[in-house]
């Protein structure tokens, strides 16, 4: 590795067609934040319709049943594939991995650039699908065939095809990114950065990436078959032509369930990285956490059919899949209790980053335990397809995507942009988001217990659910509060770019390598190759004057001799 500083490239190569992992991370971040506004906008229309059916949604007009189906489809697709993935893997993975392992860039910088631009095209294709004749895809984010297969069933022609294309491009993008993550973290580690000294953020990005690489293949095959069905009339999923609709469900969920962990892992990585910094304590049971994550990854590959208990597959398959599903609680209990134990005996500070990390942990707990009700084949008979499922997966996906994502942004913003964010606005942002989130989804748990099915344009028309309508109104009030709560963030994010206090190298007094270089780090990251002497969590070591010890500071003995 060269030890000299690389020359700064020109404007276009620096900000647009850049192969620098930090710029690429910011590009992913920009797309993710923009798409989260689009996703939030769909949520707003969905929630308004559910609370006050068939009234004029301010800014939309009346939402019809066909457009409603398109909205729920696109909301899921956008939030999972165009917000969570680019935010947690694209932005944080790209930014953190090279800096944290002590590398000057990703292993394949040009492949990395191709990855973000492929993703950009995928985003354009998905957004275009809103505007084509027939409208956007309306068969759910799970795209169950035959509904998604034969245009006669939805009257959506181009929208569904573009949906498949956008996902195919997105998968290609994250395959390229994944190859980079894996190679960089394994091969470009600085001297002394052994696997057991890797920051948990890197471990968890790797866990998510490997899982993605292992699970996405079958869905790519499935998507190609769906495309061939639509364009050439092949009939892989059409019984009239000898196909089978359950084939799609298996292929989709073989990827779709691990996908939850592809997102959850980096989200947990962020929270695990932040907790020790603001507890001023080592993470509790570092190695056990890593092994638990690997076990959870492995288990997540053999649980997919819990989405299919009542699908019509052989009912004797349900119990084995129920067992594997519920077993996943064991590694997660270990991780979550390790996070709580990290606080024990600490000296806790509560900047916005820490509030979001703690809020994410507290909320994910409810998402985790409610998963048991759905993982149990018997209680799933009743709860399947209800708002209980909606509330459950928002309680898992929202904390790892948004609570952890915001925690990561407040934490790494100074390193990314060289300026501090405003803490008062950050805390306001946290409390509005937190209270809005609970106000939205606690009522939806109850609506689900009452039986209310999801993806229903007007639950208020059902005899059973008319009395539950106030829950829908409460949920919408919560969603509006949550959306409003993003204003302080947008203001803070933009204003701090120009007016924020200049960030020093290590404003949080943290140990990982990214805090040993300037904020923002120069092209090539490190002035010379760093040498790593210790793990990432040596906080509050006895006998030291400071309560932190960056990974590139020598062992205590050397330091004591020097001091």
């Amino acid at each position: 590795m060269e030890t000299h500083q690389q020359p700064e490239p020109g404007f276009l190569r620096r900000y647009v067609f850049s192969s620098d992992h930090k710029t690429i991370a910011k590009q992913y971040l920009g797309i993710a934040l923009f798409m989260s506004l689009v996703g939030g906008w769909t949520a707003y229309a969905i929630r308004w319709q559910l609370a006050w059916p068939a009234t004029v949604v301010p800014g939309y007009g009346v939402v019809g049943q066909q457009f409603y189906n398109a909205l729920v489809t696109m909301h899921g697709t956008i939030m999972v594939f165009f917000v969570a993935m680019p935010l947690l893997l694209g932005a944080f993975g790209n930014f953190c991995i090279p800096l944290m392992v002590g590398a000057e860039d990703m292993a394949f910088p040009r492949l990395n650039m191709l990855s973000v631009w492929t993703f950009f095209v995928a985003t354009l294709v998905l957004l275009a699908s809103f505007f084509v004749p027939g409208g956007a895809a309306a068969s759910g984010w799970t795209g169950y065939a035959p509904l998604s297969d034969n245009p006669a069933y939805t009257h959506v022609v181009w929208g569904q095809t573009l949906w498949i294309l956008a996902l195919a491009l997105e998968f290609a993008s994250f395959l390229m990114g994944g190859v980079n993550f894996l190679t960089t973290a394994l091969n470009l580690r600085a001297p002394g950065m052994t696997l057991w000294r890797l920051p948990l953020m890197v471990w968890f990005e790797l866990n998510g990436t490997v899982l993605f690489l292992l699970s996405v293949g079958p869905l790519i095959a499935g998507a190609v078959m769906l495309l061939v069905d639509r364009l050439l009339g092949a009939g892989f999923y059409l019984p009239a032509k000898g196909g089978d609709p359950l084939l799609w469900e298996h292929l989709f969920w073989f990827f779709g369930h691990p996908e939850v962990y592809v997102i959850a892992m980096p989200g947990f990585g962020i929270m695990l990285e932040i907790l020790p910094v603001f507890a001023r304590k080592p993470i509790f049971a570092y190695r056990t956490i890593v092994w638990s994550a690997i076990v959870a990854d492995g288990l997540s590959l053999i649980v997919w059919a819990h989405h299919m208990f009542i699908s019509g597959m052989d009912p004797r398959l349900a119990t084995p899949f129920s067992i594997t599903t519920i077993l996943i609680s064991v590694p997660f209990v270990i991780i979550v209790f390790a996070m709580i134990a990290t606080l024990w005996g600490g000296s806790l500070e509560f900047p916005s980053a820490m509030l979001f990390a703690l809020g994410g942990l507290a909320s994910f707990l409810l998402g985790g335990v409610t998963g048991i009700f759905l993982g149990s084949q018997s209680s799933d008979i009743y709860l399947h397809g209800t708002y209980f499922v909606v509330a459950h997966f928002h309680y898992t996906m929202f904390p790892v995507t948004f609570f952890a994502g915001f925690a990561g942004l407040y934490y790494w913003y100074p390193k990314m942009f060289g300026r501090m964010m405003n803490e008062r606005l950050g805390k306001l942002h946290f409390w509005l988001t937190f209270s809005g989130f609970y106000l939205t989804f606690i009522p939806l748990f109850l609506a689900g217990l009452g039986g209310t099915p999801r993806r229903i344009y007007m639950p208020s028309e059902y005899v059973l659910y008319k009395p539950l309508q106030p829950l829908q109104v409460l949920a919408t009030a919560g969603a509006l509060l949550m959306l409003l709560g993003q204003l302080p963030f947008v203001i803070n994010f933009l204003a701090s770019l120009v007016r924020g206090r200049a960030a020093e190298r290590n404003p949080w007094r943290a140990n990982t390598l990214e805090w040993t270089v300037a904020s923002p780090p120069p092209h090539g990251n490190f002035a010379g190759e760093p040498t790593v002497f210790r793990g990432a969590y040596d906080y509050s070591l006895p006998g030291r004057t400071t309560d932190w010890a960056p990974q590139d500071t020598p062992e205590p003995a050397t330091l004591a001799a020097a001091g």
Partner: protein
Amino acid sequence: MITGWLPPDASSYGRDIDSVFRLILYVVGAWFILAEGLLVAFVYRYRRRAGVGARHITGETARQAAWILVPAAVVLMLDLAIDNAGAGAWREVKEEMPVSQLEVKVTAMQFAWVFTYPGPDGKFGTADDLTSAGKLHVPMGAVVRLDLSSLDVIHSFAVPNLRLRQDVVPGRTIPAWFKATRPGTYEIECTELCGEYHYRMRASLIVQTPAEYQAWAHKHWPAAKKSAQVDDRRLMAAAQ
């Protein structure tokens, strides 16, 4: 308190499903309260105070790791208990098909449910078959077997009051059963997104006393009262 949100149960196996639900509720409820309680307590207790530093605890020694490994072992045991309870109820509802007193073919299509009765001769495909769109009449206390099929896309046959839900997949005939225990009219819903008017794909389940059901059957099947009376006795016996 939480189970009070479930709609009234009107089937023979609803109670078993609800008891699995209740078991899970108690187990995860206790863990949830414990974990959140510790989290809140630690956040309060270990907030930064002047002159008090953090302790260097790595959690790597066996004694320390026990704080997370012992709970994990307990959770493993509880998981298996939940699996066991769930497997029993599942076997009853989905794997074992009891002898039925009435068989109905359910055909799903965008956006309607059609119910076909075999008629007095007990055979499908004969002239006395009775077809009813949107209304499923059944006698209380009788085991009803449904043969579910779809003409187009995937639908899901759901009756929350029966705790019954089963996807209906084109290209297959999927069996389901229930025994209603309370007379009344219950909502049948499609709970798998099936297209534009998915939200209107509803029907009614009308559970009647055996006598009322017979009256309804006689009215609609006037041709063969004799064999219907044979049915009467079977139904009466089943209801007792």
